[in-house]
């Protein structure tokens, strides 16, 4: 198994997707003026979520709705709710950050990263491994509960007074990325295989190429984060950012045992569990916990955990998932 893992890791880190991320990190660390305009990056992000959602929905249309779908979604929601609590107490042990920052960071690890999911889906496609279409719905379901338990931690363990949260709930549930993911999933479901064929030249065929371009941008953003805000976190936090995904996978494996998913589906659930949010949760935290420092939670999620998952995390999760089957 170790051999196989090594091969997977090697194949993964030499895939264009990962190499473009590395290119982006390198360019921005060296202060290149390379920049993907924000409007373009958002368009790419919307494209990726739309494509993932639509394909997931169309897949469910073919297989039909099953009991396993329901149980998977419920399990994932619980997973997302519980993970921040574990993250909170672990990080409190490891690091000396203020409690409010620890709570904010914890929420990120319970939630998920759609781009990490996209990279894992791409890696599975590469290996010819199938997965259940409704995993995409699981991704949508895992976005929120972590925010609620993260905020509960913050309010319970810190002095934060409840502010008028400025429409926090709307921000959380109607977050643009969730609307696109869930909406495209529903539309894909309604349109089915036939609808997918029609939009395939836009949503399916160029997907990997667009993912490369998007990861170039993610690399630029992550590299800039290191440069501007690298000093915000220390070795302890970096360690946590690489340890926590593995703990989440451990926790997820308990749930997964009962779900009878395919190896590919299991790998994707592991990836979701291991990934940390850098879109929905930061937005929620800035509204709900304005005193928690973005420089800390963004650097950990985008600068440490995202690259970890992208490079060696995904191969590990696939390997474990395959040994489960």
């Amino acid at each position, binding site marked *: 198994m170790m051999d196989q893992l090594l091969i997977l890791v090697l194949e993964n880190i030499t895939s264009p997707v990962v190499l473009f991320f590395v290119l982006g990190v390198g360019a921005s660390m060296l202060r290149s003026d390379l920049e993907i305009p924000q409007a373009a990056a958002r368009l790419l992000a919307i494209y990726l979520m739309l494509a993932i959602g639509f394909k997931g929905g169309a897949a469910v249309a073919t297989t039909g709705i099953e009991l396993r779908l329901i149980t998977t979604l419920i399990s994932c929601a619980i997973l997302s709710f519980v993970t921040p609590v574990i993250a909170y107490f672990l990080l409190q042990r490891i690091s000396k950050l203020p409690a409010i920052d620890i709570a904010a960071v914890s929420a990120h690890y319970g939630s998920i990263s759609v781009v990490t999911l996209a990279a894992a889906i791409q890696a599975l496609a590469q290996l010819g491994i199938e997965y259940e279409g409704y995993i995409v719905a699981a991704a949508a379901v895992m976005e929120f509960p972590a925010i609620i338990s993260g905020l509960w931690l913050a309010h319970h363990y810190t002095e934060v007074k409840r502010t008028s949260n400025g429409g926090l709930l709307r921000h959380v549930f109607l*977050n643009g990325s969730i609307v696109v993911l869930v909406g495209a999933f529903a539309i894909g479901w309604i349109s089915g295989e036939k609808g997918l064929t029609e939009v395939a030249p836009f949503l399916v065929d160029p997907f990997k190429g667009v993912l490369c371009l998007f990861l170039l941008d993610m690399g630029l953003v992550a590299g800039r984060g290191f440069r501007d805000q690298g000093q915000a976190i220390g070795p302890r936090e970096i360690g946590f950012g690489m340890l926590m995904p593995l703990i989440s996978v451990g926790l997820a494996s308990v749930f997964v045992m009962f779900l009878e998913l395919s190896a590919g589906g299991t790998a994707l659930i592991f990836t979701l569990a291991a990934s940390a949010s850098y879109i929905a949760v930061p*937005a929620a935290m800035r509204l709900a916990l304005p005193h928690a420092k*973005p420089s800390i939670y963004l650097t950990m999620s985008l600068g440490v955990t995202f690259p970890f998952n992208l490079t060696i995390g995904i191969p590990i999760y696939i390997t474990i998932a395959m040994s489960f089957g």
Partner: protein
Amino acid sequence: MIKTHLKKRIEMIIEAPLEINIIDLFDELSVKGYTIIPAIFGRGQEGVWRGDGLISGAGQMIVIVSILDPARVEEILSRLYEFMKNRIGIITISDVEVIRDEHF
């Protein structure tokens, strides 16, 4: 000579997700007009941010400009100040002259 009238120009630099809240507040206070301008990079007490750094625009900052009648500044400012107290951003006030008095 064109006659001009003294007004106050309020300029706020705040986080983009709070745009809706400020607009609601302005509605509540019947502020007659305002304009929102994008910002691309900034630094303050809470460190550095950049508009292209977050895919979702969550960390984006914006500049809100409103030209107000001096008689209303006190009231509006105190409400804005209260809203901003625990948040990232700044408010500045300056003097400007306008031609159409009744517009503001």
